């Protein structure tokens, strides 16, 4: 899977002319416009049922005391804002919120983003062989199913794993990473798994920039760095903000990686919001409470999503 930067025509924004079929002289009536919308129906039904449905259900469910067991399971009651009030007083909630922010910032915004940008810049000027080695390893980590990536990282960080073996080789004290530094382990694991995405976005973006500019920026040392910051970065500004939004949203969703590596422990020291919601709703059977946590997460996702739309502005060129 070498990176050969040939782009299919479909990628990116299409030329204006291609997308306006015989626009001139047509004034679509309401009926025609309705008829034309018919093909949208399957998609709209699916999205309404399985995307909008759960969102509405989430808000509704968060006002009940639904449970997996006990009387609340057979006859859940409407409890108003009780779940949200309990969230505010539950010390585990700010803990999960804080760990989620740390996870987002360190693994996505800083780790994946900067490493991805760095790799994209360096590979642009690197010999083809080096480039293909980097692309193959980095992208393989990304292509692997999340649970397999999680096993590989679990083994890597476990007390008798590869990392400690390497530390022992240089006479450093071995550390039980998953236990002593669970957040560091899952953050590094998420960087390992997710950097390819940022790298590919930036490679594609840099492709639009004249190659000499990028290459010179890397090779010319100090002068080049300035050029990188003042010339290249502004040119790919849009890609940077798009990338940041996408990796933030992806990272907000990370469940399997943490679930497999630490299950949120020890002592909830790596319990991010998705793990917290799972543990409360399914582990302890407090479905209503877990749904309130889910609703908070959906709100956070919605805020990022709106920011993302503002950056992208679909159909802005119409």
């Amino acid at each position, binding site marked *: 899977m070498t990176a050969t930067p040939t782009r299919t025509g479909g990628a990116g924004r299409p030329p204006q002319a291609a997308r306006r079929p015989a626009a001139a002289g047509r004034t679509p009536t309401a009926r025609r416009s309705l008829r034309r919308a018919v093909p949208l129906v399957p998609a709209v039904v699916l999205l309404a049922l399985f995307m909008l449905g759960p969102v509405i259900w989430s808000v509704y469910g968060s006002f009940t005391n639904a*449970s*997996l*067991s*006990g*009387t*609340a*399971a*057979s006859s859940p009651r409407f409890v108003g804002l009780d779940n949200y009030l*309990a969230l505010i*007083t*539950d*010390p585990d909630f700010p803990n999960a919120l804080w760990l989620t922010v740390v996870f987002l910032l360190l693994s996505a915004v800083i780790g994946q983003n900067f490493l991805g940008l760095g790799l994209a810049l360096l590979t642009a000027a690197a010999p083809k062989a080096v480039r293909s080695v980097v692309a193959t390893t980095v992208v393989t980590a990304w292509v692997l199913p999340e649970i397999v990536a999680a096993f590989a990282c679990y083994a890597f960080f476990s*007390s008798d794993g590869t990392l400690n073996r390497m530390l022992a080789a240089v006479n450093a004290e071995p550390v*039980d990473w*998953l*236990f*002593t530094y669970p957040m560091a382990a899952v953050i590094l694991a998420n960087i390992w798994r997710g950097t390819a995405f940022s790298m590919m976005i930036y490679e594609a973006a840099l492709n639009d920039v004249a190659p000499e500019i990028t290459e010179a920026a890397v090779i010319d040392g100090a002068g080049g760095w300035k050029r990188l910051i003042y010339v290249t970065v502004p040119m790919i500004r849009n890609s940077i903000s798009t990338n940041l939004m996408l990796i933030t949203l992806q990272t907000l969703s990370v469940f399997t990686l943490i679930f497999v590596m630490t*299950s949120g*422990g*020890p*002592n*909830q*020291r790596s319990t991010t919001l998705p793990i917290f919601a799972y543990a409360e709703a*399914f*582990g*302890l*059977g*407090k479905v209503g409470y877990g749904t309130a946590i889910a609703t908070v997460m959906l709100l956070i996702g919605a805020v990022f999503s709106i920011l993302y739309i503002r950056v992208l502005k679909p159909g802005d060129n119409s």
Partner: protein
Amino acid sequence: MRKSVLWAAPAIPFLVLAASGCAPAGNDAEGGDKSITVAYQTTATYTQVDKLMKKAKEDFEEANPGSTVELEPIQAEENDYATKLALMQRSPDTAPDVFYEDSFRVRPDAEAGYLLALDEHLAEWEDWDSAFIDSAKQAGLGADGKTYAVPMGTDTRALWYNTEVFKEAGLDVPWEPKTWDDILSAAEKIKAAIPDAVPFNIYSGTGMGEAASMQGFEMLLYGTDDTLYDTEEGKWVVGSQGFRDSLQFISDVYGGGLGPEVATALDSNYYQQLNGEGYPTNKVGASIDGSWIAGTWLETGPAPWPEWSEVMAVAPMPTQNGQEPGATSMSGGWTLAVGANTKNPDMAFDFISTALNKDNTLSFNKDASQVPVRRDVAEDPSFTESSPVNKFFSDLVEVTHYRPTTSDYPEISGSIQQAMEAVMTGEQSVEEAADAYDDAVRNLVGDDNVIEK
């Protein structure tokens, strides 16, 4: 690449998907042959239930031609099994007809409407009156006084120890600890004599699930002057000295390096390593565990160890300071129950009566080293002879305790495990963890349902 082929390929699975039996549930349709599904737990080393169910399926299908029993083994540790079972029970379409259920979940699940009341069926089952021990029948009772589950066996807990490790550490065998301090001082000696052995194990933390609450915490707490729940008042106890002392013991073991590595102990599979490798290789001194762990070493078990009965020995768990009656134990046990929405209640119950008839119960109780709840099994010579510790564990019934039978126990138990984990990792002091537990209990059951001690 031939694109036309690539293009056509995706259609095939879609057609299969549409045509095959992947449509929403409902394979146990009425008319013609009947079938029931049976869900139970199985793990890499706990295969005794699997063996029992396979045998029962064979017996049942032979006796009832045309009937099918679909076994649905769930490969998971205790906590994950409970979650998975609850996820299945929640929906009538996916609820199994018969399932393996921990006795402490019977009451909340009966309240949730997941379990079928079995009284009418039990009335017609001769064995229920003649063979089952009355006190054991409590395990299947719901809050409304109806019986919702049939017990498979019960269990007691005590100290297990490796006599060779003890002798090497210069300790007296047989070991007769009278107080908690005796346990700690024995562990200190083992630690000094054999640095690479785990001196003493007590299950702790959320990963171990109910084993931490029961084999760990409650074995301590019920040996103090306090309890978890005030049965007379019907209230949960908060702020008790016994609770703090029990947490302090956990802290002494893990903080003092007398237990396994904390990280290891938090792994939900740790018991496999402890009993399957640790004891047979003389790398563990002592532990609090259930009667059933002998099943690990039997010929039929996952880690056969022919010499186990010469090397391993048992002692009753002492009370905190040796207060009356001198020893303590906890009893639980598992049951079989019928799903409330089963389409074939008679068949489901008949299956249970087959699975738990004398012969099958006898071999299950032997394989899993259970304390029998059937008189005929307890008295059967082949049971008493099958293991040298069977009598010891049966006798502990004299001093044993049962968990609170309220429906909020499972959640309270989760809070106990969190307090243990906070203390064993050093994250919180004993005081802080105990206070956090008190807050959690108040949140769960409300201020009216707690009593300050």
